[in-house]
Structure formats: C-alpha cells, structure tokens
C-alpha cells in the first residue's frame, strides 16, 4: 500500500465527529431529518439548474414547505407548527445546505412577514394571513430596507400620510426577497408618530414590485424593488402592536437567528462535497485527501464548522429559554456567515478548476453567502454591535 493511503479508521462526516445529536431532542432531530430528506429529494437534484437559470419555483416549493410545516414553524397557533427555536434553526441549516435562496424564502416568509403579523398584527390580520401563509398558499415579503438606507433604517424616506381615516404610502423599498411573487407585503413607513408597519395586499393599486435582474448571488431567489406610488390603505392596515423601529428590528433578530444556523448548512454542504472529491480525485498516484496540505484544510474547516454549530445550538437554547439578547444573535450571525464563506471558498481550492462549475456546490454557496454576509445586518454592523457590547461605546457613526 502506498504511503498515505493507509486507512486506519472509517471516515466520518465532519459534524458526526462532534457527536452533537445528543444535544438535541428526538423530535427536533426528526424535524431536521424530514427537512434534510425534503431537500435531498426535491431541491438538490434541481438547484444548480435553478441557480444558473435564475429561477426558483416558489409557489410550488412554498406549498410543499407548508405541508411539512416549515413556514412560520416556530410560531404558535394560526396554523403554525409551534416548534422550538432549536428545531427552526436546524431546519434552516438543512434548507441552506440546499441553497441560501431556499432558506431566504423561508426566513422572509416565517421570520419576517409572518412573525411581524403574528407579533404586531390585529386579530383580523392574523386570521386573514397567517393560516394561508403557513400553508404556503400566500407568500409574504418584508419592506424595510431602502435604496439609500440599509444599515441605517431610521433614515427611511417612505412615508405614510393620513388622508381622512385612510393611509397613503409613498416611497421605494429595495432588496426585498420574495417581493415580485408576494401576496402580502409588510411595509415600514414614516408617519407623523414615528415609524409604523402596514399590511399591504400586493394587489392594492399603486403597489408594484419589479424584480432586480443581473444578480450574481442568490440567483435561486426572487429579489425585488417595492414601489409604493400613493398606495391607499384602510385605517386598519396599520400593525397595532408596533411603534418605532423596535418592531422591525425584532423581526430582523428572528431572521438573523435562522441565518446563524442556515449559513452553516451551506458550509457543511461545501465541505462534504470537497471531502468526497478529495477522496476520489487521484493526483500524483494518490488520493488528494491523503496529502497533508489538503488534510490541514479539511481539519480546519471541520473544526470551524463544528464550533459554529455548537455556538448556534447554544444560542438556540438561550432563545428557547427566552434569554437570547440581540447582541448575542450578532455573535452567531457574524461567526456563522464569515466562517461559512471562508469554508466555501477554501472548498473551491480543494477542487481546483473543477470547483468553478455548477456540478459542485461550493462556488454557488460562496456566491450566495456574499449576500448573506450583507443582509440582515452586515458583518461590519455586527462587529459594531459586539464592539458596543464589550466597550460600552457605540461606534456606528
């Protein structure tokens, strides 16, 4: 047997080495396994093609995800499954192992649009939208970011003006996932009494949502502009439970929590693919995996992945205990996405030239993670949040 090919132990999957399943309840594992199987069956065979073509069969996938109970899964009542936050995180991890676009669809539906209606809506809002959204029959989007106001949402220019008892919304929202396909938009706008949220059926006159073309990231996801051209809404369109920016920011915390897990799914998929490739690719008469430099890469990536999942599980347990603070979510979001994109890129180097084609997932994941690094709070903003937490000094501006 040639040097370096001796196999003393059976190879183990990177996360199996950490033996983490014991940290998770049986029904949480069952939920994870169901999502993993769904992604293997329904997403993995098609996703490279969707990405290349810049499409995602959102309606079809949303109904299937709704049947499983994925949409708004961590919310209680109104047709939602009411799982733990841990189960929701594990589901996000499996979805993003498929593609960040799929996880984005679920994050925006469940953690942004449904969460906002669930937490801040009236009973009428909840009854009208949540059961249909949980089933995947109605799609939601969330309009906070504007062309010039991403990290600084307080500067938003979109206004909601009172006209009699009606509200009239005017302005533009940008980088809105699911925008062009949504049935309902939760839109945040400036009023005389500060920032308020509105439930906007997308067939309201004056509302349009042109898709943003030529994306080099999140290609299997719909990203749109929302144009609000004098959108007239009845008095009861306003979300009664949210006043000021704390409302939308709490929604973002929900979605960020999903990303803490999700990004690690993209990393796991990249690493598993690179591992398999390195074991079968023969270079200078030996498997690529048998070379020390390759093993150093694989070992470092395995370690970062496992550490990331451990942190994510810890944050999930804090969330389930009702003790998760926003700056703790920043710890997870910054770490998971930063390490995930580093892993995806490193995996590309393991494959050499083969790493750039769609047959392998790491280039797609790396390109997707460029968006994930930026949305739901950029890495820089999360560094500032953590910096503020440990110094007591805010350095945002």
């Amino acid at each position: 047997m040639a040097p370096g090919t001796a196999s003393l132990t059976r190879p183990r999957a990177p996360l199996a080495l950490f033996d983490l399943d014991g940290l998770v309840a049986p029904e949480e594992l069952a939920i994870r396994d169901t999502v993993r199987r769904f992604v293997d069956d329904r997403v993995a065979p098609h996703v490279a093609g969707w990405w290349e073509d810049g499409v995602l069969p959102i309606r079809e996938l949303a109904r299937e995800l709704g049947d499983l109970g994925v949409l708004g899964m961590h919310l209680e009542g109104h047709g939602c499954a009411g799982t733990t936050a841990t189960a929701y995180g594990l589901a996000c991890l499996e979805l993003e192992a498929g593609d960040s676009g799929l996880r984005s669809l679920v994050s925006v539906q469940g953690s942004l649009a449904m969460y906002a209606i669930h937490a801040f809506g009236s009973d009428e809002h909840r009854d009208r939208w949540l059961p249909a959204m949980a089933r995947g029959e109605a799609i939601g989007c969330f309009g906070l970011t504007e062309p010039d106001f991403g990290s600084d949402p307080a500067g938003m220019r979109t206004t909601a003006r009172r006209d009699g008892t009606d509200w009239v919304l005017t302005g533009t929202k940008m980088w809105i996932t699911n925008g062009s396909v949504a049935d309902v938009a939760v839109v945040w706008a400036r009023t005389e009494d500060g920032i308020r949220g509105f439930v906007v059926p997308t067939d309201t006159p004056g509302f349009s949502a042109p898709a943003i073309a030529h994306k080099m990231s999140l290609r299997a996801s719909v990203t749109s502009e929302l144009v609000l051209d004098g959108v007239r809404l009845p008095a009861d369109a306003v979300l009664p439970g949210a006043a000021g920016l704390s409302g939308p920011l709490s929604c973002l915390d929900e979605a960020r929590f999903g990303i803490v897990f999700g990004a690690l799914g993209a990393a796991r998929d990249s690493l598993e693919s690179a591992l398999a490739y390195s074991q079968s690719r023969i270079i200078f008469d030996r498997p690529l995996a048998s070379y020390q430099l390759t093993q150093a890469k694989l070992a470092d990536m395995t370690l970062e992945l496992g550490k990331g999942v451990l942190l994510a599980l810890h944050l999930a347990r804090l969330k389930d205990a009702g003790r998760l603070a926003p700056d703790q979510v920043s710890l997870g979001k910054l770490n998971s996405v930063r390490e995930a994109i580093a892993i995806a890129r490193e995996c590309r180097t393991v494959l050499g030239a083969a790493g750039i084609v769609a047959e392998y997932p790491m280039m797609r994941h790396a390109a997707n993670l460029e968006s994930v690094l930026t949305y739901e709070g950029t890495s820089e903003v999360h560094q500032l949040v953590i910096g503020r937490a440990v110094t007591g000094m805010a350095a945002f501006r």
Partner: protein
Amino acid sequence: MNIVVLVKQVPDSGSERKLDSSDNTVARASADNVINEMDEYAIEEALTVKESQGGEVTVLTVGPGSATDAIRKALSMGADKAVHVTDDAVHGSCAVQTSAVIAAALQQLEYDLVLCGAESTDGQVSVMPALLSERLGIPHLSGARKLTVEGTTVRVERQTDGGYWMLESSLPAIVSTWDTINEPRYPSFKGIMAAKKKPVETKSLADLGVDPASVGLATATSRVLDFAGRPPKGEGVKVADEGDGAEKLVGYLAAQKLV
C-alpha cells in the same frame, strides 16, 4: 375501518450492516437502525384509506426497546397509536416463530385490514403476510401496487413481472404492498410533535400468552450457521482498444455468460 400496519425496524440498507459473531444474528447495536423502507408505503396506504373511510390506524412492531424510533416515525406520519411487542426471549427468532408472536398480538386488536411491506431489507424472507394469513385464517393478497376498499371488500392489483392480477377478497384480510403503490408523505412538523403524545402500548410475550420457550434462537426453525464478509473487489479487466475493442468487450461478456 380499523387498520393495523406491521412495521419493522431494520439496519439502514444504505450503510454498513453486520452480523453479531457471537450468535450470528443481526448486530443492531452498532447499526444505523431505521424503519423498513417498504413499510413506509404500507403506512401511507393505511393513512390514505383512513382519510377516505375513517377509522383508526394502529402500528404493530416486534423488536427491542430501540424500535420505538420506528414507531415514532409511523406515528409522526399520522398513525393513531402503536403496540410494541418487546421481550428479550424473542431475540434470534425465525420468521415462523415471529409470525406466532405477531398473530397473537393481532388477535388482541380489532382490525378490518392488516397492511405490511412486501419485504424487509434485512432478512428478505418475505413470507410474513402468508404465515399470518394461515395463522389468522384470513385472506392474503400479496404484492399490491394498488388497493381499494369498498364496504367489506378489498381489491388490489398484484404486481408481477409480467403484468398485474386483479384480486378481490372480503375483509378482514392482510395485504402486502410494494413501493409502486404510492409516494409516502413526509412526516409533518405537527405530526412529529403530536407523535410523542400518542399512545404506545408495550406488550411482553406473557401479555400475549406466548410461551417464551417457543420463540428465540434455541428453537428457531432456521438459523445462520456461518457467514463471511464479501470478498474485496478484484482488479478490473482493462481492454485496450487496438481497433478490435468491441470484439474484445463482447468476448469478455460472452465468457462471463452475460450475453
């Protein structure tokens, strides 16, 4: 319409499976144990019949304590309750002995229809429904690719290599199903969370009135005497194409009696 689905936990056919060298039985402790794949189709069929006809779906399994994982899976898909027969004396039982245990358990249940997968991926003896049919004195309709129930009549299309047979019998009956019969649903999250609250009744051989001496390896009608690992894959044959590649390939296939 009360339906009992027979479910078996087996080592995952997709991962490495071993026999225990101390008694030549399946090494369960080291295996990745899953619900027998074919059984998921039987569960799905039971749930479909229940959805159109009403009634209750009961899962019945014989197996060690860890077989509760297979039960949970079936309950999370939508079955209503489960009976888990577990008794150390059953270890190493052959199909004939096991059928006596299952038949005794079925006799304590109310059923119109018994469904099971046409084979399991571990032993692949594939005689359980026939043995139960004989023990219970009910009709056996094997290898269904389609099933309909009307009143007290069950009709199936029995899949064969050459086509299919149309079979019909009165209820109660036992039907085994192939994976062509449906597409099993994914367990929904609500189903997964509801499963832990569904009743699972655990029964011993004493509860069933089965003599422990009548089952188990010592009195099994068949047992594994010896086993050997699969020989390592040999070196492949390289055919160099010197203008006669096709001829050489056909020659090789002919020598292996493959053409």
